[in-house]
């Protein structure tokens, strides 16, 4: 009687839990839409700025149900380096834990769930109409249960409806109430954005569109302070196509000065449908569909708290490095319901989707999946950039309701991770400059560390580029950076790629990890089908570098910097292709290993493994990680 379809829908709640010309001196290569002076650190050759575009605060139901009290203003302060009190909260309102970044972020966006601004506000604002409704009372008393009820209604079905307490006429009452948190998010972003030319921090105005039935979620990020009066939620726009139409009509067309992009995330939990090659009518994509898609979504979040979405060993068997922070279920609901567990399908992952984009490009003349890369945290503590593996407090309240003590044991499910960072190559740290980097996809993602990665492609990049002092100048002048298209092919020859990586310089007392190797991942189309190959191009994949899992001490050879120039040996001019670089650090302890060691869990001595720490010794628990960076690709079109 209960088909998988209905179970999925019932539990769909989980969707919530859950080509550059160098600028001449004196000119900006990006358009300034804000009245700001040029930053003092302005550099025409660009610098990587590190940020987090996926942050939840108290206005996200699935954060506040776990005791998160962080306001958008406090999240910005945290990103700038201030300490923040986090749950559990004592009876006197004093937090029992503190979190603080070892180094500030350059930019961040608070992305609370748009669907629940109104509802959450009503349920937690005494006196708001609806405060005393059964669902709100349930929310305050048994928030985890309410989560399933509320999200099951609002975010988890293909056709969400508002709760009755939102009133008639499309839930106008909840939409109006949403103006509270939405306004506060905008104000917080404005206050944290100093106009001083030091340009220390850039906050973006954003929200999360939480569409279902599986994870179809997008973070919607605005270029500047010109934003619609209310966010577009999955109640008004039930599909991604409707979201894009809404962004077009309510922002780009309807509001002069408004610019926006949407960033899909957790395709690993989308049940294979995040990147379907179907249009709004369910028909095969037409070229205008492909163009609409890519105008709205030039980027994808490749890694975050709930897993990496680059690739899967199930579908990229030859690449064992795909076994990195991967989840063994393909939808969020399957985490809770074993019978829903299925092998992850290829279309959940970015690498196969880049290939599908090439296939569609050959068919349509437009690539719907021309995706640049970045990563973020998806923190539900309101703690942007909290990515350290050591001293990781989890990204939620361990699922425990407001006011309760934290449970013994791991404070995050063992398969989750601290998430990653978004990196933008930009002349300066301002909204206009960073947003321009997002649009041209000159971005990369990391699993947390701040390595500095350059990736250029061209036809005649010099073989000795790494030995000169003009790597960057030549890269821009004779090639294209990450996110770009190779220029039309000249006679003969295969494309050349230059990759350089500097290790994370670290913080006092916490040096960055050494680099193990550089790779180029190539995806191409052969006889109408996408193929993939991974090339080790620098460093030593067989190095003796290792980590002692008891002490977490690292040892062995590694590089402070790696640089090489690589020519594709299998290039066929008639085949569409896409290339991206992957940078790997030496192995280091995973967050869970730090926590398990701290707790004295010795898997050889079962008596030492106390309640809540059992996952430390589960056979499939990864104890070390190879932190990494993924660059945006460079495309070749015949």
């Amino acid at each position, binding site marked *: 009687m209960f088909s998988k379809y209905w179970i999925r829908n019932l539990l769909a709640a989980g969707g919530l839990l859950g080509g550059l010309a160098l600028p001449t001196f004196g000119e900006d290569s990006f358009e300034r839409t804000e009245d700001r002076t040029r930053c*003092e*650190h*302005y*550099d025409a*050759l660009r*610098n990587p700025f*590190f940020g987090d575009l996926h942050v939840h605060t108290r206005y996200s139901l699935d954060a506040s149900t776990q005791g998160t009290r962080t306001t958008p*203003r406090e999240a910005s302060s945290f990103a700038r380096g201030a300490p923040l009190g986090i749950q559990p909260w004592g009876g006197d309102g004093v937090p029992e834990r503190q979190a603080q970044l070892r*180094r*500030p972020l350059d930019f961040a966006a608070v992305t609370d769930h748009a669907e629940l601004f109104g509802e959450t506000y009503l349920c937690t*604002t*005494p*006196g*708001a*109409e609806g*405060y*005393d409704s*059964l669902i709100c*009372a*349930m929310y*305050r*008393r*048994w928030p985890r249960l309410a989560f399933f009820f509320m999200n099951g209604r609002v975010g988890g079905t293909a056709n969400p409806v508002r709760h009755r307490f939102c009133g008639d006429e499309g839930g106008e009452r909840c939409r109006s109430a949403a103006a509270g948190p939405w306004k506060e998010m905008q*104000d*917080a972003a*404005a*206050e*944290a*954005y*100093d*106009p*001083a030319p*030091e340009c*220390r921090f850039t906050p973006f105005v954003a929200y999360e569109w939480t569409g279902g039935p599986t994870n179809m979620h997008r973070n919607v990020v605005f270029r500047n302070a010109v934003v619609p009066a209310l966010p577009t939620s999955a109640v008004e726009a039930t599909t991604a196509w409707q979201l894009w139409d809404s962004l077009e009509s309510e922002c780009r067309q309807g509001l002069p000065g408004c610019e926006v992009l949407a960033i899909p995330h957790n395709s690993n939990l989308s049940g294979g449908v995040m990147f379907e090659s179907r249009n709004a009518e369910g028909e095969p994509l037409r070229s205008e569909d492909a163009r609409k898609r890519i105008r709205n979504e030039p980027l994808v979040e490749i890694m975050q708290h709930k897993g990496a979405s680059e690739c899967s060993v199930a579908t990229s068997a030859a690449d064992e490095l795909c076994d990195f922070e991967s989840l063994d279920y393909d939808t969020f609901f399957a985490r809770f319901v074993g019978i829903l567990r299925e092998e992850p399908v290829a279309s959940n992952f970015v690498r196969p989707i880049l290939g599908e984009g090439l296939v569609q490009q050959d068919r349509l003349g437009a690539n719907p999946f021309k995706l640049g890369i970045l990563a973020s945290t998806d923190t539900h503590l309101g703690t942007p950039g909290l990515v350290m593996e050591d001293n990781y407090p989890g990204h939620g309240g361990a699922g425990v309701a407001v006011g309760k003590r934290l449970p013994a044991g791991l404070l995050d499910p063992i398969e989750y991770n601290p998430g990653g960072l978004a990196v933008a190559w930009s002349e300066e740290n301002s909204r206009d400059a960073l947003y321009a980097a997002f649009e041209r996809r000159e971005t990369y993602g990391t699993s947390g560390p*701040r390595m*500095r990665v*350059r990736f250029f492609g061209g036809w005649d990049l010099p073989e000795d580029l*790494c*030995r*000169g*002092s003009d*790597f*960057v100048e030549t890269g821009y002048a004779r090639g294209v950076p990450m996110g770009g298209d190779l220029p039309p092919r000249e006679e003969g020859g295969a494309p050349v790629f230059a990759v*350089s990586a*500097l*290790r994370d*310089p*670290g*913080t*006092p007392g916490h*040096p*960055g990890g050494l680099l193990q190797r550089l790779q180029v991942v190539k995806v191409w189309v052969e006889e109408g089908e996408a193929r993939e190959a991974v090339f080790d191009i620098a460093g030593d994949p067989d190095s003796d570098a290792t980590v002692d899992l008891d002490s977490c001490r690292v040892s062995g050879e590694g590089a*402070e*910097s790696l*640089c090489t120039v690589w020519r594709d040996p299998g290039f066929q001019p008639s085949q569409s292709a896409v290339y991206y670089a992957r940078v790997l650090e030496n192995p280091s302890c995973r967050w869970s290993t730090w926590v398990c060691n701290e707790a004295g869990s010795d898997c050889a001595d079962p008596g030492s493994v106390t309640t809540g720490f059992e996952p430390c010794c589960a056979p499939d628990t990864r104890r070390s990680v190879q932190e990494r960076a993924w660059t945006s690709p460079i495309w070749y079109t015949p």
Partner: protein
Amino acid sequence: MTRRRYAAWHFLLLGGLLFLVQKTLLSEGSPMSSALDGLDSMEQVAPGQRDEEILYREALRRGLDRNDAVVRQRLIRNMRFLEPETSLEDEALYRQALDLGLDREDVVVRRRLVERMRRVLVSETPIVKPGTAELQAYLVDQGERFAIPARVRLEQIHFDEAEAAAQALAQIRRGEGDGRALRGDPLPLPRKLPSLSARELAGRLGPDFAARAFALEPGRWTGPVPTSYGHSLVWVHERSPERSPELEEVRLRVLGEWRAEREAEALEAALERLRVRAGWPAAP
């Protein structure tokens, strides 16, 4: 059974359910379980709820319940629940509810009034929009929080080995070459860096380098200074010390923090006056 009988059964059923919900969901510790007839039993109010009680009483004293749209809607809805067949207009129902004292029996009304009273108290304390002078004073007072860090503009030549860097520096010092022609080892970092803070410098060349760079003598080649990637010879072109920002550089942030502080103070002061009047001053 007639429709009316069904309605009666539904009413009883719903009433029973609501009673159970009230007993189970909302008991023990829930703010919604606080005594509704507390107006005459002040001593029974738990210390943690006294402020709320004071605010509620003050709201009633001022008649806020008589002119509030949410209260009005709520009371009309309650009346229609009690008398589903009524033919009275909203206004008449509202007056009837007030006559019956329903505004003193309803948890939503109570919380609405408490929240509104808070806002009223804040708004009654004249927080005049601060002038530039006031914000400036606040900025000076809170200087550390808003300070703009020192910056340095320098040029660096990277060497993989410290020894090679030291030799190159010795060469320059002996007058054999002027340094500007010196190449060092390749590193994809700009040789000439823009004006940077210590944090920005640490992001490029590492925290150890950033910690030392500000102490280097400007106007000459110095080093080698260890970086995260090797060793650099450094020429400091320009240093600017930490400074207090001009107000215009941080006005919105200053204003936001200033306002949040003033509002909290205003509320506390007003509450204290009410506490004293109620005979419940805050514990010293």
